[in-house]
């Protein structure tokens, strides 16, 4: 199996798909229907191929697997791909969410369907590339490249204030990344390579580490996002079409979390240790402040967007504890959030497609008309507030456990976030779903269609399965995480 360049195949299948779709030139309903089917099948095919990774993945090997390495620009810069226990799940999360996104866009996208679908497939290429790259230049290329299709998705198919939001999103993330680019150039000049495997072994001086760490951090902090650089996220989510929000919350935010694990703590351990209290502080502020903000939102998407910032706060908390539980918790929290927040945005999309408003006050009493919808929504709300038995609990618990062993102050404040999460989540649910159905325009609401059930079903199953039996996932993550933790400990000593 190792003979086949499976990662390259995963990355470039969407590109091949794009060429196929360019062949369809007509602009009528029938051909746009064909385009949707084509895109869906391509994305689904990619998902199936990515699943094969799971079968041939060696659970006992903590190193990079499925490695491909070809000379590229110069001697030190190569086309180097590979995945380990940390990244494999993100690849699968991506390939799983893209077909769901395409399926979710079947009804809601009315114009320029071809361009929309092409943007999505291009985005998939970039996202998979980010998680597979083992070369900083390649990583940067994919990391930034993803901005362009996302920019188009929000800017063209978005809501009323889409232009403002798009530019805010684009400039914010680009500005952050400039520093990362500078850092990469510096690394290449001083070490002669941008190869990640080599750099993981390289020892930078402490001063170098501090500066390079800040450069990488600036980029990741904006993207994950951490308080106070989070304000682009609610705007971007609100204006993005449903599928755009899904992919933004589901995958794009995770690229930064992945970057923290792979680069920040991997290559710059001293600096990471030095800055850990700073990260903890920002994370805890994010958890509490954005939860309180979520409490007073009147727009469903904004509420979920703010809750995403809070959830990502747990991720950064966990990663910078440098413990096995913390990093594993962070990864599981990201996977879970990738499923749950994606599902929550889909839930918003379902009612938005019917009533064309995201204002919470316009809803109420939907359970009378939409029992299946209410049930699905309930599962995701419970996962979002971290109920044991759902995927949301596992990550949060491990993160809190690890931070409590490091520093009780941060742990106490972070744990209050769990109480606040319950408050805003249940309050949202109650206002939309419960109560008597009295508003006139709601009487036309109908329950989930078959297409929507197909979208929600895998997400529900995964949410509960990971909640009750996360062992398969932990088995995948654990060897690589332990390796990272041991390496850091070795370097720090």
């Amino acid at each position, binding site marked *: 199996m190792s003979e086949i360049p499976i990662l390259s195949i995963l990355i470039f299948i969407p590109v091949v798909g794009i060429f196929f779709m360019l062949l369809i030139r007509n602009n009528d309903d029938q051909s746009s229907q064909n385009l949707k089917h084509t895109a869906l099948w391509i994305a689904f095919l990619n998902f199936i191929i990515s699943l094969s990774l799971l079968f041939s993945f060696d659970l006992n090997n903590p190193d990079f697997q499925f490695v491909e390495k070809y000379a590229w620009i110069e001697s030190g810069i190569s086309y180097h791909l590979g995945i380990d226990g940390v990244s494999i799940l993100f690849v699968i999360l991506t390939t799983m969410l893209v077909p769901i996104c395409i399926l979710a866009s079947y009804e809601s996208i009315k114009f320029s369907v071809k361009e929309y679908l092409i943007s999505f497939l291009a985005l998939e290429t970039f996202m998979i590339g980010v998680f597979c790259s083992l070369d900083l230049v390649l990583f940067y290329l994919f990391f930034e490249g993803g901005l362009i299709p996302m920019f188009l998705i929000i800017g063209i198919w978005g809501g009323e204030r889409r232009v403002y939001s798009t530019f805010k999103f684009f400039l914010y993330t680009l500005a952050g990344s400039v520093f990362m680019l500078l850092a990469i150039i510096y690394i290449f000049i001083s070490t002669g390579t941008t190869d990640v495997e080599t750099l993981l072994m390289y020892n930078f001086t402490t001063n170098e580490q501090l500066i390079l760490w800040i450069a990488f951090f600036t980029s990741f902090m904006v993207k994950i996002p951490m308080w106070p650089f989070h*304000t682009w996220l609610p705007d971007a989510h609100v204006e993005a079409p449903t599928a755009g929000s899904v992919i933004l919350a589901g995958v794009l935010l995770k690229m930064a979390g992945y970057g923290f694990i792979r680069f920040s703590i991997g290559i710059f351990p001293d600096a990471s240790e030095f800055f850990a209290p700073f990260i903890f502080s920002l994370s805890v502020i994010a958890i509490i402040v954005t939860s309180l903000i979520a409490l007073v939102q009147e727009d469903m998407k904004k509420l979920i967007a703010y809750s995403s910032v809070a959830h990502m706060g747990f991720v950064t908390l966990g990663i910078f504890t440098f*413990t096995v539980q913390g990093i594993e918790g962070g990864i599981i929290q990201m996977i879970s959030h990738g499923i749950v927040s994606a599902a929550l945005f889909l839930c918003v999309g379902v009612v938005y497609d019917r009533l064309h408003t995201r204002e919470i006050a316009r809803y109420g*009493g939907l359970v009378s008309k939409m029992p299946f919808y209410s049930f699905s929504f309930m599962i995701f709300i419970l996962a979002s507030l971290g109920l044991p038995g759902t995927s949301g609990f596992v990550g949060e*618990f491990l993160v809190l456990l690890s931070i409590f062993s490091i520093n009780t102050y941060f742990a106490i404040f972070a744990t*209050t976030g769990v109480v606040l999460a319950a408050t805003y989540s249940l309050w949202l649910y109650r206002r939309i779903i*419960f109560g008597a159905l009295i508003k006139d325009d709601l009487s036309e609401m109908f329950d989930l269609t078959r297409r929507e059930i197909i979208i929600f079903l895998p997400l529900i199953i995964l949410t509960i399965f990971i909640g009750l039996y996360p062992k398969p996932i932990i088995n995948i993550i654990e060897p690589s995480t332990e390796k990272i933790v041991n390496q850091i400990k070795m370097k720090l000593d």
Partner: protein
Amino acid sequence: MAHSIILLPLIGFLISCSLSFFKSNKFIDRAAEIITSLFITIAAIFSFYIFIDNIGDPSVVSIKLFNWISSGSFNADWSIYLDTATRVMLVVITSVSALVHIYSIGYMSHDDSKPRFMGYLSLFTFAMMMLVTADNFLQLFFGWEGVGLASYLLIGFWYKKPTANAAAIKAFIVNRIGDFGLALGIFTIFIVFGSIEYQTVFSNVSSFKNVNFNFLGIELHALTLICIFLFIGAMGKSAQLFLHTWLPDAMEGPTPVSALIHAATMVTAGVFLVVRCSPLFDLAPVALDFVVLIGASTAFFAATVGLVQNDIKRVIAYSTCSQLGYMFVAAGLGAYGAAMFHLFTHAFFKALLFLGAGSVIHAVHEEQDIRKMGGISNYVPITQLMMIIGTISLMGFPFTSGYYSKDAIIETAYLSNSNFADYAYILLTVGVVMTSFYSWRLMFLVFNGKTRMAEEDLSKVHESSSVMLIPLIILAIGALFFGFLFKSYFIGYYSDVFWNGSIVVHHEDHHSIPLLIYYLPAILGIVGFIIAWFMYIRKSDMAKNIAELNKPLYNFLLNKWYFDELYNSIFVKPAMAIGQIFWKFIDGLIIDGYGPNGIAALVSRISIKAKQVQSGFIYHYAFAILIGLSFIITFIIFRF
């Protein structure tokens, strides 16, 4: 058999909730009712069997089902762990749950979503079993939050009622605050002991007797810290003072729910937790003092509020709150067996009272205000008889179940030389009078005296159907005889063998108690009865006059010591205000104002200026060149 006890409610829940998605019809409703009730009844029979089977010669069964979370050195399994404490809880849970399921068939007969209701009841039962059969703290936490979820769903069952929704959310959130404490306790246990499995923790506890833990920069006795965290969790679930506010509101749910969750089982989970962790608590005297203090204060506080409430269910809810305080006092004084014993008997007589109240509410057409009842004893004789049995057991009338368990607690308080034992003894003794008074006040206002109902309503008052009355009768048997039957096992001669090391058992010499102290609770109970009789039967306007005379005190009690108002103004409103400030002001004005929007504005300002420079007039440019040139020349000349 252990497997099926756990699985039956789960299967019942899954089937019943699947049925609830179908369009409601007679067949589906009946199927859901029969399946869930039957499954729980079988589980109850099994539970009784393993309870009785092990009573003389208890064994410990530990079954590991499969791994749940294991990360690094952290490990937690799904498990079934059966020791005596678990078996007692299983009997309580399954038997009350089975009776409540059956009762609900009658009580909910006019409701149009029966499968959903029965499903939720089974879900609750399942979660509660997970809680008690855990062999580690994480599964306990799963059950702990699971029952919280079921409670949330059931309180908000009538989702069209805004008050029910509000109460449901309140219950969940206040419980979450308690869970916050429990979670911190679990973290500390893991860090101190390196494991969260009961057996590892409890068997090694003595070697950690003197370990300190650095919490918020302060070195604290680790066990004390752990126990206080755990107890905060218990306070939330068992509605103890400061975290009690959700329980009275929870009465918005259907009455069978109140009987099962908010009287017999879920609210006693806190007591179970303390008793389960008795090896830890026993070595943390400061934490035990804290438990006594909170327990006794709650017992007193809730009883005072119960004196003046007018909603039939709220009176009983405050009574539950108060009785839970009694249990905590027992646990805090080291009489863990007595705490479990009161938990056991209380489950039966309090479920009886609640289901009786449900029968009354049913009879008087969904009215819950006892000021609008009265004089219905001839119409509902069986219900009245059952509620009298519940009441005398609650007040501790000699030889009823409540008498044995409550007396044991009060005697322990009298004998103990713990720091707050006297405080507890006095408050509990006063509590006995109040308990008896509010219970009989309720009974007299509901059943006796002149009716305050409209004539046509009164004529429609009817006794409940037998599907509701039979559970009442079975519970009444428990309320009368279980105390006598099981006394020697729980707290008496056989207690060492019976508990078999599952909880810590201390022996006290109850023979040294003066006769007066021994009979005092029974006497005070009768005093409470006489006062109630005098005020509500003999001179029925007396209560009103006393209330008029002591208006401030009456209002203070009627408004439950103003806890809700206090919390609203110090927690809820500020949280909302802070959220608004951070959103509109910090995010909107400062971050966006100076960040992206500010920079964007700056850029456009600068570009406007830059645009002005490019005027297009030759002489502007020539002038600029001239100035520039003279600057350069000046610079060169002076430089050299």
